[in-house]
């Protein structure tokens, strides 16, 4: 097979992997911010934030990798998606700035401490919401702009995109809650246990609504799922999702500490796979295929050589740093 045929497929999976890593890793950190008002007091809020303190910086790096990877491997997709979703992207960037610096400044501030706590919460909610809107708008389909025309400021807006925005907020909150079950004890863990099942119900409901509304979307995502017996091959995805949901429910009842997080990651992974399967072979539904959007083999191959060595190295570091900070966060860990 030709390089120009194979390389875009390889890069589709590399970028999919990078985005997946970002969604899982920064997802639970953003979840902490979403859940921070549920803490009883400032001390518990500190404790929640400190569980992610050593690793959030690295987690966010996957987003930069996703952006730079998309520009290198699929420049046309990068240009189309980012320019047509201008305002949601802006919202995400600003929200991430507030979330990031709030993470840092909150522990140095005295009189303005509440302000940075608020910035952390609002920044996390809006970043999650914006990412959900971006996902929804992408799945709904982004048509290439006819030459000479200008994107409408709110072309991306649809009830579906708003709904996926709310869905991602709930989903990240679920990841955050199960992360807290894993990393904390006592009152904070109890709060997380109490929140997990309602959040899971919300996530499952949203997954069903998204699945049900797919046929109404411009991108015809459902075609792949329901044509030519594909559903049979793909049926493990919804089946495993159901299994994950049941197991998550049971693990909370039995007060397991590690399993809820694993099953929550599983739910996200399966939902992501469902969408990726639906979008394939497009990178921007409904019309831009991975081959049409791809940079030439001289570009994709050049980066692939480096990525083949460097991405495993990044992964090795990530595993290492999680191992260094494994286990329950001690009550007095952090900065005080």
């Amino acid at each position, binding site marked *: 097979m030709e390089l120009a045929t194979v390389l875009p497929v390889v890069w589709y999976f590399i970028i999919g992997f990078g985005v997946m890593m970002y969604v899982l890793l920064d997802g639970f950190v953003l979840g902490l911010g979403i859940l921070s008002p549920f803490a009883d007091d400032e001390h518990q809020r500190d404790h929640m934030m400190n569980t992610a303190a050593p690793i959030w910086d690295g987690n966010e790096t996957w987003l930069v990798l996703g952006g730079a990877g998309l520009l290198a491997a699929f420049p046309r997709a990068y240009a189309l998606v980012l*320019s047509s979703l201008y305002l949601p992207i802006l919202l995400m960037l600003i929200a991430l700035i507030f979330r990031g610096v709030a993470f840092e400044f909150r522990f*140095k501030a005295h009189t303005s401490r509440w302000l940075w706590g608020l910035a952390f919460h609002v920044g996390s909610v809006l970043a999650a919401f914006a990412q959900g809107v971006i996902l929804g708008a992408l799945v709904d389909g982004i048509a290439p702009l006819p030459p000479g025309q*200008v994107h409408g400021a709110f072309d991306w807006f649809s009830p579906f995109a708003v709904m996926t925005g709310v869905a991602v907020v709930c989903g990240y909150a679920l990841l955050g809650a199960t992360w807290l079950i894993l990393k904390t004890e006592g009152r904070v863990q109890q709060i997380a246990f109490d929140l997990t099942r309602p959040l899971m119900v919300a996530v499952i409901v949203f997954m069903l609504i998204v699945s049900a509304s797919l046929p109404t979307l411009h991108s015809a995502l459902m075609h792949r799922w329901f044509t030519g017996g594909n559903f049979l091959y793909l049926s493990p995805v919804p089946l495993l999702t159901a299994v994950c949901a049941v197991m998550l429910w049971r693990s909370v009842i039995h007060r397991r500490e590690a399993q809820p997080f694993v099953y929550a990651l599983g739910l996200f992974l399966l939902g992501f796979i469902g969408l990726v399967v639906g979008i394939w072979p497009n990178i921007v539904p409904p019309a831009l295929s991975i081959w049409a959007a791809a940079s030439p083999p*001289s570009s994709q191959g*050049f980066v692939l050589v480096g990525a083949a060595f460097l991405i495993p190295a990044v992964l090795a570091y990530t595993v290492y740093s999680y191992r260094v900070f494994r286990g329950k966060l001690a009550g007095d860990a952090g900065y005080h």
Partner: protein
Amino acid sequence: MLTAEFLSRLQFAFVVSFHILFPAFSIGLASWLAFLEAVWLVRRTDPWRDLYFFWLKIFAVAFGMGVVSGIVMSFQFGTNWAGFSEAAGNVIGPLLNYEVLTAFFLEATFLGVMLFGWRKVSDRTHFFATCMVALGTLISTFWIMAANSWMQTPAGYALRDGVFYPDDWMKVIFNPSFPVRLPHMVLGAFISTAMVIGGVSAWYLLKGRFADKSRATLKLALAFLAIVIPVQIVVGDMSGLEVHRNQPAKLAAIEARWETRRDVPLTLFAWPDEQAQANRYAIDVPRLGSIILTHSLHGEVKGLQDFPADQRPPVAIPFFSFRIMVGLGFAMLGLALIGLWRWRRGTLEKPWYLRAWVVMIPSGFVAVLTGWWVAEVGRQPWVVYGVMRTSEASSPLPVGSVMASLATFVVVYLGIFGAGLYYLVKLFRTGPVPAPVREAAPHQTPARPLSVPQDAIEE
């Protein structure tokens, strides 16, 4: 008239001007930290460890601000410059991707060890981590300068249907302006940082605080600048020759030369009048222009009138920015040379001289900023010099969206980075107090970069 393209240019200039200050500072600080730790490893005396930890806290803040503002940059190319991304993404994308993979990897891995591993790893491992972070900042500079230099002097590509296809990556990366612009930027970052180190030290000496440590670091900054600024002037001169060769219209704008001539003067100051295509109130030094710009007595310098009107860069910004940059460069050199002389005579700590240092703390950063304005505004009206126009590069956006985003960035950056600067000043006020010794393992281990400054401030 306010177009989306013009607003996008303003926005890019604003966010990148804010951003570049922090990487410039962390490039310099990372190498400074490697130096401090090396001295500590050899001498094993407390002041060097105290200095290391003091500057490590400053570094953590600068690095954090650089990361936050850098994420915005990685999305700007798509949001506001979709035309450029589509046309040049094949070339620029891989360079930026390599930056993420090579530099972020090194920095992310070893920053953690550097900031939080003091009690967990051996001295040598810790020093190795510091060196790797310093290397990471330099690798990052390498890729960014390769990408930007390619936009100044594109090479190694084929153009088909308005899209750039790389055909020789060595030529893309080592394009004609890259070998000069990379050291120019790295030295600029080093000089900016040395100005802060020397200026802060002078400030402590004025206040009578940390006298021994500050005397040592002031002398180090002084000696470093006395050696490096002359080197930077030579590199800057080479950069001028390169621009003369490859971007003649930019050179004409920098020098406000309207007519192509031999034996051109050097215009020290003037008010360039773009309407009349002439300089008002000019202070010229005869013939010096040709000598400096072409390294020959009668060298020819192209004037702006040789270029079609729609291929001329704006004159005022490159002209004045360049003079500010060069003026500050020579002012910093003067400060260093006076310092060497006073050092010999043992009168280094005269208050007026120390005050001059404090006043000049920002001059390196101002030179970096104005230098970038020369490079980027002087490249106009091209985004890829001579091949692709800036007007073809912008995204098809409604004016309102870009106006909203520009206003948001201005408000947010002034607020957030104001807070960051306030925080840096607070750290400087605290100063290089005694650092924790390794044996005492207190219950608290700072968990991430920006939490390091905390222990000093809440004393």
